[in-house]
C-alpha cells in the first residue's frame, strides 16, 4: 500500500513542479524538496522497525554493538547527504552537490575509523 | 459677518449688499437723520470715504462717527475697490460690458453706481476700463406723489398735454417723472389710467434690474430699458402703442426726429432736459428748434428756491401765458 502512496505523491509533485518550472524555477525546486521530505515522512514510521529487527539479529552474534550503531549512523548520514546532493543537482548546482557528497564521505570515514582499526587488529591477531 | 439691517436702512439695502463688511458697519453706524436724507456714497481709492446727505458732504471715520474734516476719515484701500467692483457686478464683470462702457452699473432696486478710473482703448477701438478706482453710489428715493404739484398743469380732464420739464441736474426731475408715470398709468381720482411707455436709456426712471422695474411706475406701463431714446420711441410706438411716452434728458438731434414721429402718431410726449430755465433752453439749438415749432404745449421749470424739486415756473405755450405766479414747493 505504501508504494502507491509514495508513487502518487511523487508523480503529482513532479507535474506541479514542471508547470511552475518555466515561469518560476525557484518554486519548482521548493516543490521537489517538499515532496522529498513528505515521501521520507511516509517511510519514516517503517524505518525504526527495520533498524530494531536488524539490531536484534546482530545482538545474537558476539559482534560488538558499537559497530552496529556506527553502521546505522553511517546509513543515516549517507541518506541525508544523498538527499541534499540530489536537490542541488536538481537545481543545476552540480559542484555544490559534489561538495556535499565529499563532506558526507569524510564524516562516514571518520565514523568508520574505529571499525577499521578493530578489523585490522583482528586480522593482525589472526596473522600473528 | 453680515447682519440683517433693521427698518430704516432697508430701503437702500441693495446698496449695502454691494459694499464690503467694514463699509457696511460704518454706514449703518451713521446717525439716522443723515441716513434718511442720504443721496450719494462716494468711494475713491486712496482717498477718504465720503457721504452726501441734506446737500452737504460728510467724511466717514473708521469708528462710524461722521466728521466734516477728511483727516480722521477712513481711507479706501485698493482691496476695497476690487471687492466693490466684484460685488456690484455680482462677480460677473463680463455681464456688464455695455453698462461698464457707458460708465455706470445699475444695482437691484434701480440704484445706479457711477464708475470711473483708468481707461484704455482696445484694438477694436472700444474704450474699456483698465483700473476702476472710484465709485459713486446714487441713492434714488422713490418719493410718492412728488408729481402732485405738476399734475393739474399737465392733465386737463382726460387730455394730457405734451410737456417738457426743464431742470438743472440733481433737482429730482427723474423722481418727478417717475411718479408722474406712475400716476398717469395707475390713474387718480378724475382720471382713468392710460397706457404709458417709458424709454429708460440709463435705466434710472424705472430702475430695471434684468428687465424687471424695481420702482413702481404703474400697472399700465411698459419699459424699454437701456435702449437709446431715438430707436426706443419708434419701437415703443410700433410695439406697445402707448398713449403717453415718457423719457428722460433729451439732447441729441435724432431725439427730436423721434419725438416728431411720436407726435404724428398722436402720442403725448413728456420728457425732460438739462437747463436752468426757458431762456437758457432757447439758447440751446436742439431745444430751440423744438420750442419754435411749438412741439410742447406745457413747459415746467424746476429749481431749488424752496428746496430741491420746487416748481419754479409753468408755461402754457398754447395761450402763451404763465400758469404760475409764485414757485410751489
Amino acid at each position, binding site marked *: 500500500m505504501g508504494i502507491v*502512496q509514495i508513487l502518487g*505523491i511523487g508523480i*503529482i*509533485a513532479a507535474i*506541479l*513542479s514542471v*508547470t*511552475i518550472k518555466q*515561469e*518560476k524555477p*525557484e*518554486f*519548482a525546486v*521548493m*516543490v521537489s*524538496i*517538499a*515532496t522529498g*521530505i*513528505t515521501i*521520507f*515522512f*511516509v517511510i*519514516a514510521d517503517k*524505518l*525504526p522497525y527495520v*533498524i530494531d529487527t536488524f539490531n536484534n539479529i546482530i545482538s545474537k552474534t558476539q559482534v560488538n554493538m558499537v559497530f552496529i*550503531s556506527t553502521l*546505522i*549512523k553511517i*546509513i*543515516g*548520514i549517507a*541518506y*541525508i547527504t544523498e538527499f541534499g546532493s540530489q536537490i542541488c543537482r536538481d537545481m543545476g548546482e552540480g559542484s555544490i552537490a559534489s561538495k556535499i557528497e565529499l563532506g558526507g564521505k569524510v564524516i562516514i570515514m571518520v565514523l568508520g575509523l574505529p571499525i577499521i582499526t578493530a578489523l585490522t587488529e583482528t586480522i593482525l591477531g589472526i596473522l600473528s | 459677518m453680515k447682519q440683517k439691517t433693521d427698518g430704516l436702512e432697508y430701503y437702500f439695502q441693495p446698496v449695502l449688499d454691494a459694499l464690503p463688511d467694514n463699509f457696511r458697519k460704518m454706514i449703518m453706524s451713521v446717525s439716522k437723520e443723515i441716513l434718511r436724507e442720504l443721496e450719494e456714497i462716494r468711494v475713491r481709492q486712496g482717498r477718504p470715504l465720503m457721504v452726501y446727505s441734506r446737500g452737504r458732504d460728510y467724511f466717514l471715520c473708521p469708528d462710524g462717527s461722521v466728521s466734516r474734516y477728511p483727516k480722521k476719515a477712513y481711507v479706501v484701500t485698493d482691496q476695497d475697490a476690487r471687492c466693490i467692483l466684484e460685488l456690484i457686478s455680482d462677480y460677473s464683470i463680463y455681464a456688464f460690458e455695455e453698462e461698464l462702457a457707458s460708465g455706470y452699473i445699475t444695482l437691484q432696486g434701480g440704484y445706479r453706481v457711477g464708475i470711473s478710473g483708468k481707461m484704455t482703448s482696445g484694438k477694436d477701438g472700444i474704450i474699456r476700463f483698465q483700473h476702476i478706482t472710484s465709485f459713486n453710489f446714487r441713492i434714488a428715493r422713490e418719493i410718492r406723489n412728488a408729481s402732485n404739484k405738476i399734475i393739474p398743469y399737465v392733465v386737463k380732464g382726460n387730455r394730457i398735454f405734451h410737456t417738457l420739464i426743464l431742470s438743472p441736474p440733481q433737482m429730482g426731475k427723474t423722481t418727478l417723472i417717475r411718479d408722474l408715470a406712475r400716476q398717469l398709468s395707475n390713474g387718480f381720482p378724475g382720471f382713468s389710467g392710460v397706457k404709458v411707455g417709458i424709454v429708460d436709456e440709463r435705466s434710472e426712471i424705472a430702475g430695471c434690474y434684468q428687465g424687471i422695474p424695481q420702482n413702481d411706475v404703474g400697472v399700465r406701463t411698459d419699459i424699454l430699458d437701456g435702449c437709446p431714446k431715438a430707436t426706443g420711441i419708434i419701437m415703443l410706438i410700433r410695439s406697445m402703442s402707448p398713449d403717453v411716452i415718457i423719457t428722460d434728458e433729451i439732447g441729441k438731434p435724432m431725439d427730436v426726429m423721434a419725438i416728431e414721429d411720436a407726435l404724428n402718431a398722436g402720442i403725448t410726449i413728456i420728457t425732460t432736459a438739462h437747463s436752468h430755465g426757458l431762456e437758457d433752453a432757447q439758447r440751446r439749438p436742439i431745444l430751440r428748434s423744438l420750442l419754435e415749432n411749438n412741439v410742447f404745449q406745457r413747459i415746467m421749470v424746476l429749481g431749488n428756491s424752496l428746496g430741491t424739486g420746487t416748481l419754479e415756473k409753468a408755461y402754457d405755450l398754447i395761450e402763451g401765458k404763465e400758469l404760475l405766479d409764485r414757485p410751489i414747493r
Partner: protein
Amino acid sequence: MNIDIIFKIAAVGILIAVLNQVLLRAGREEMAMLTTLAGVVVVLLMVVNLINNLFNSIKSIFRLY
C-alpha cells in the same frame, strides 16, 4: 501524511507567477520583483520548517546525536 504542504507551495508559486505577469503587463517591474521575493520568502519559511522536521526525525531514527 500531510501532503497539502506540496500543494500549498505549488499554489503560491503559480499565484506569484500570474501576479508577476500582471504587474509586468502594467509596467510595474520593480513591484513584480518585490512580489516574487515575498513569494520566495514565504515558501522558504514553509520548506525550512519541513527540513527542520526532517532532520529531527532522522536524528531520532538513526540516533545521530
